[in-house]
């Protein structure tokens, strides 16, 4: 392994440890919810990271549709898979927070439902890529990604458009909303650390995608030689 990735991994591990310290020790205890509110520092950065990954997936898919560039297709595959992992964290940490605060694990309100739909769209995308064997797989996946991304701004806006059980926006939510200034550093540290982790996972997954393509090509060559021998 080259030096730069090693240094980046070391910085990421340090950032994740420091971010956890910020969330669990430095962040103030919320008055009404108590310690359970600290789930916010994992839940929200995971959601932001997932949105960012789905946005990169959207861009890479658009590039693939335009240029038929296989590297863009590999980026799309990598970002979708890592995005699903982060979205899964969001969908599991949310109900764990909701149970002691709301008294229920889940409710079919607009924010929760659209987030579940978002997860299902990208799981469908991965299933399509995994099990479709035709030559049009990358093309179909790119088209699905373009349509699927429409749900990301919908998820973001649901708590602004509808009255939901999910808390109303504390960031960019108007004059009556806002985050306590002491809560910003833990939140931003966790987002930075999760984003760095996402970069590593995407880089590894991208490399795997290229390796898979290489192996497939080699299999085809071997089969061709066998057929002509």
């Amino acid at each position: 392994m080259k030096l730069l990735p090693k240094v980046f991994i070391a910085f990421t591990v340090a950032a994740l440890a420091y971010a956890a310290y910020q969330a669990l020790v430095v962040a103030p205890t919320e008055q009404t919810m108590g310690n359970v509110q600290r789930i916010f520092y994992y839940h929200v950065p995971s959601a932001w990271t997932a949105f960012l990954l789905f946005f990169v997936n959207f861009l890479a898919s658009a590039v693939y549709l335009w240029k038929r560039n296989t590297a863009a297709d590999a980026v799309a595959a990598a970002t979708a898979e890592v995005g699903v992992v982060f979205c899964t964290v969001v969908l599991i940490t949310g109900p764990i927070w909701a149970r002691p605060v709301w008294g229920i694990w889940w409710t079919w309100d607009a924010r929760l439902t659209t987030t579940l739909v978002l997860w299902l769209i990208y799981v469908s995308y991965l299933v399509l890529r995994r099990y479709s064997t035709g030559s049009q797989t990358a093309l179909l996946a790119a088209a699905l990604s373009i349509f699927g991304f429409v749900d990301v701004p919908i998820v973001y806006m649901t708590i602004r458009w509808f009255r939901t059980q999910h808390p109303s926006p504390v960031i960019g939510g108007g004059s009556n909303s806002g985050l306590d200034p002491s809560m910003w550093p833990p939140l931003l540290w966790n987002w930075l650390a999760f984003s760095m982790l996402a970069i590593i996972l995407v880089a590894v997954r991208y490399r795997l995608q290229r390796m898979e393509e290489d192996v497939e090509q080699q299999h085809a060559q071997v089969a061709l030689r066998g057929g002509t021998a």
Partner: protein
Amino acid sequence: MKGDVALKAAYIVTWVIQLSYMGYLWSRFRRLREEQKDLKREVGL
């Protein structure tokens, strides 16, 4: 579920998911590397 238990559960679940995914990537990497070696051997023959 009490607040402190929920907090621990959420943080543990997050890392179980992330570490499981890393493990999955690692096993996939190893399998592909083996496959590449086998193919090189096959082509060499």
